[in-house]
């Protein structure tokens, strides 16, 4: 065992979505958020002119909170790839955070961007835009204090906020470094999770612009057809920020062995998702009848996916954390031995107990994602 915790990079978190859509102040402790979201514990204003008196149905958070910045510091999750998340899709019970127009998607995307900027202004996060920033942030986390800012690499889940190829440079300048073209449903650029069909024509000029800017393409949430269409067209860096293995858990949302091989051939990195819906072999993503409201699996279930990817790759260079924790679910659908994001350190202990060498633990915890970004940013 190492004498101090290993730096963790989480390759996929939806921080701004939680802050702006679910009203979570992520500078607070998880305990504070849980108290605030406990309907019984919170008071209401009694003033006759308070808005409380005319409120309608309440906004319900998507489960019990597990991710906040203090909790990340506690677990030495010192760097996060965190999203701008807005997609065009007919809103439904299952996609209540989708919007109806690309103008609205742009607006939600900008709101996420500016939330992160406000955090940066407060010193809560350290924005990583190039290899120099990345090295500086890793150095900060060598010997962190309770105030060390969490490193932030900006990603985008569904490219709808990008109104066209001509906007890509501005998003790059704002710090955007990874983009998945699609998310749930069919959006402006193509088909995503839960749909069949491939890319739409606007995806190609968008990819050209993303390529020239230097953005990494994230293949999570691509439909099967779109996945292969992207790889046919795109010759730049790729990853799958948050995806598990279809060989272990059924459903289109997960990567087939061929997809994993293809990503490894491109030196991509696959981020493991710590969610029941991605870890329980009895749960078919595409069959709602198999979906349960509470978790049954421990974190060790993610180790099976880790192992599967390492077996296909023949090395431990292509897998990382991409937990998606609090990304539309909470503790109820997270592994049953997990309480807050600080517990990710305990996953590293599970790896060690299963006989992974410390060198492989470090690669998984941060080394592989560092390599991905350093390679992608060599020129910039």
């Amino acid at each position, binding site marked *: 065992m190492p004498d101090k915790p290993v730096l963790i990079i989480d390759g996929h978190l939806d921080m*701004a979505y939680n*802050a*702006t*859509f679910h*009203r*979570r*102040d992520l*500078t*607070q402790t998880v305990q504070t958020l849980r108290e*605030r979201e406990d309907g019984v514990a*919170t*008071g*209401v*204003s009694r*003033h*006759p*002119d*308070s*808005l*409380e*008196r*005319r*409120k*309608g*149905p*309440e*906004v319900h958070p998507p489960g019990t909170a597990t991710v906040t910045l203090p909790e990340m510091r506690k677990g030495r999750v010192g760097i996060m790839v965190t999203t701008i998340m807005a997609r065009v899709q007919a*809103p439904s019970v299952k996609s209540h955070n989708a*919007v*109806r*127009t*690309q*103008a*609205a998607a*742009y*607006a*939600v*995307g*900008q*709101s*996420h*961007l*500016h*939330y*992160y*900027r*406000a*955090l940066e*202004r*407060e010193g*809560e996060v350290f924005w990583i835009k190039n290899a120099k920033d990345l090295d500086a942030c890793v150095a900060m986390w060598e010997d962190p204090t309770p105030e060390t800012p969490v490193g932030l690499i900006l990603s985008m889940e569904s490219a709808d906020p990008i*109104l066209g190829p001509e906007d890509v440079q501005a998003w790059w300048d704002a710090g955007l470094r990874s983009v998945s073209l699609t998310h749930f449903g069919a959006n402006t650029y193509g088909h995503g999770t839960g749909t069949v069909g491939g890319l739409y024509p606007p995806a190609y000029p968008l990819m050209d612009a993303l390529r020239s800017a230097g953005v990494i393409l994230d293949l999570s949430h691509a439909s099967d057809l779109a996945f292969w269409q992207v790889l046919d067209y795109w010759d730049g860096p790729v990853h799958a920020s948050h995806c598990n293995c279809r060989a272990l858990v059924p459903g289109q949302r997960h990567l087939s062995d061929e997809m994993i091989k293809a990503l490894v051939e491109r030196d991509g990195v696959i981020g493991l998702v710590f969610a029941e819906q991605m870890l329980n072999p009895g749960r078919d993503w595409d069959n709602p009848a198999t979906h349960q409201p509470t978790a049954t699996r421990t974190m060790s279930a993610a180790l099976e996916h880790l192992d599967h990817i390492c077996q296909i790759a023949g090395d431990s260079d292509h897998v990382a954390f991409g937990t998606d924790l609090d990304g539309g679910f909470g503790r109820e659908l997270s592994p049953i031995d997990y309480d807050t994001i600080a517990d990710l350190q305990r996953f590293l202990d599970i790896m060690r107990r299963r006989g992974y060498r410390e060198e492989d633990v470090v690669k998984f915890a941060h080394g592989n994602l560092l390599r991905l970004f350093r390679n992608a940013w060599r020129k910039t």
Partner: protein
Amino acid sequence: MDRPMLIVDSHLDLAFSALQVNRDLTQPAATVRTHDPEPVMRSFGSCTVTFPELRKGRVGIVFGTVMSRLDPNDRWTRTGMFCQAQCHGVGRGHYAYYEALAREGVIRFIKNLKDLDEVVAAWEHPAADTPVGLVLAMESADPILDPDQAQEWYDLGLRMVSISHYGTSAYSHGTGTEGGLLPRARPLLDALRAAGIVVDMTHLTDQAFWEVLEVYDGPVAASHHNCRALTPGQRQLTDEMIRAIVERGGVIGAALDAWMLDPTWKREVPAWGQQTKATLETVADQVDHITQLVGNARHSGIGSDLDGGFGTEQAPRDLNTIADLQKLRGILERRGYPEEDVRGVLSGNWIRFLREVWGSR
């Protein structure tokens, strides 16, 4: 009847309606009503404001808000937050929505005299695609992270700010609370004054209202505010407050929320479970009260607040969509208002106000 008159609406939460209520505002209201799921209709009412309706009613100029506040109790609108960083994020999202609409040619930002004159001229003979002029406003100053950010917001186009909204902002007590300005209000007011941003007196507590007038000598207005003499309650302006705003050259926009028009409106009963007595005549009563009080019709306007958390159910009972604001013209004419005054109330007073504020800079 003559051609419709240009209307200025000094308070619409368009971006909130588009982003938090999740509506495509480029569609007719009737279409949006088919889109809105039942829980949304129950919560926010039936849609009344979209760009086609604005055009139909010749509401050619609007004050569109950026709206997010510190308000832990608001579990309803997704705009009441726990910290200012969240408010800033939501607020910049609202601005970005208008920015995207401007790129599409749906709106045109009005940031200065030239923009204002050109938009007014364009609406003399509007085409089907004449952009709606939009003055950027902010309801609750919480998205301004610090006074030193006021200039940045001005550069984005922000021209009017209310210091608080419901609850207590980072800067002041607001509607539904008791108390005055907070320590950070003073430097904020100084920064707004320096940047040239109008202070909107709407949603201040009584105490904060008078404190603002004491420490701030710049231009003021009340974007969406009715008369306490007609509808009791902290949310409305006393006659003394009306006089004070008018003395400063301000304009007061009449709000169309039944809660602010109809003393018998029951706030604890859902809007879909009651019928207001208020009509557009009741709106004209607000205008008339101010006119009689100050002796002229130069300080009243329309600041409807339609779709600002309520819909048709909580609006005057003879209003289906915002296009019906044109009916106010006939109502005011029948009450003996000369054409010049009618024009003033519908648009001229706000246009004059902006010209005075911007011309003096």
